[in-house]
């Protein structure tokens, strides 16, 4: 098992130029801070642990649609291993052993007819998940400000940096500075 980075894809974002044209037609100057509520991004996030998505959904002013363990079966390969575990042989062995045991129990339960929605109670937080997240530039900015801080955990920091990078690439004018709120 090798630690893979969280993958992020920008699926949609508000057309800032169209927004500017609409404002210009009204004779209203473009104000990037005021537009933070109206510019929206939709991201697909993959290979992220459920530990991190629990942190992510604390940012409540956003819409989330996450892969459900009620309906999809867990696989042995789908795990995020923290770097501190990855780089420590004894810890990695313990992690691996626990995973094997958990998966053996999960498979025994589902084979015995326990629904996936119940068998999942045994699954660990490191399991990989996928989700779609839609949020405004203002919400994203708050998330980036909080989750790229040094105190943030490594995985959500990596995710926040990727989200920031993608948003900045398509709407650079909104991201000249991170407004702290």
């Amino acid at each position, binding site marked *: 098992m090798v630690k893979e980075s969280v993958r992020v894809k920008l699926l*949609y974002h*508000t057309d800032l130029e169209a927004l500017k044209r609409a404002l210009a037609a009204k004779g209203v100057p473009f104000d990037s801070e005021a537009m933070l509520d*109206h510019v*929206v991004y939709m991201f697909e996030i993959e290979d992220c642990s459920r530990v991190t998505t629990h942190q992510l959904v604390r940012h409540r002013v956003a819409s989330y649609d*996450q892969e459900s363990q009620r309906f999809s079966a867990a696989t042995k390969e789908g795990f995020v291993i923290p770097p501190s575990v990855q780089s420590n042989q004894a810890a990695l062995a313990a992690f691996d052993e626990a995973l094997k045991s958990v998966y053996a129990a999960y498979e025994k339960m589902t084979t015995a007819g326990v629904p996936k929605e119940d068998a999942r109670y045994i699954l660990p937080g490191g399991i990989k998940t*996928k989700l*779609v997240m*839609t949020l405004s530039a203002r919400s994203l900015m708050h998330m980036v400000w909080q989750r790229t801080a040094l105190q943030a955990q490594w995985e959500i920091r990596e995710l926040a940096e990727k989200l920031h990078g993608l948003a900045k690439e398509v709407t650079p004018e909104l991201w000249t500075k991170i407004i702290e709120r």
Partner: protein
Amino acid sequence: MRRCYSTKPIEDIETELEQKGPEYWKFLLTKALQDKSLDVLEHYTMTLVIEGAKEAQVSVLARSHPYLRATWLKGEDWLISLNARTLVELWNDKGAKLFAESVVAELDRKEVGRLFNSVAFGERIRAS
């Protein structure tokens, strides 16, 4: 798009949706609306310029519908952003129905989201 029932990558879901075509999209939208699984509609967002709206009216809408965002432009003109879930909720809210109807009429006029509009709000005679 409904992420939670599938383990597939987004590209595969998009391809599958394209291949299955509008009848299948209509089925999914109808099911989401019937089951009141409106959260999936939150990913479809729109921004409109609204003319002739008083501050009190906009305040009532924004207070009652937290995903509706409003910025005053000038006079009685506003920039309003909302998602499709909020639009459905506005449509079902007696006090906001007129506003929702005018938004849907504008979407129809611009031929935006025609399939969604027809499923969510019924077949309507397009405003001339």
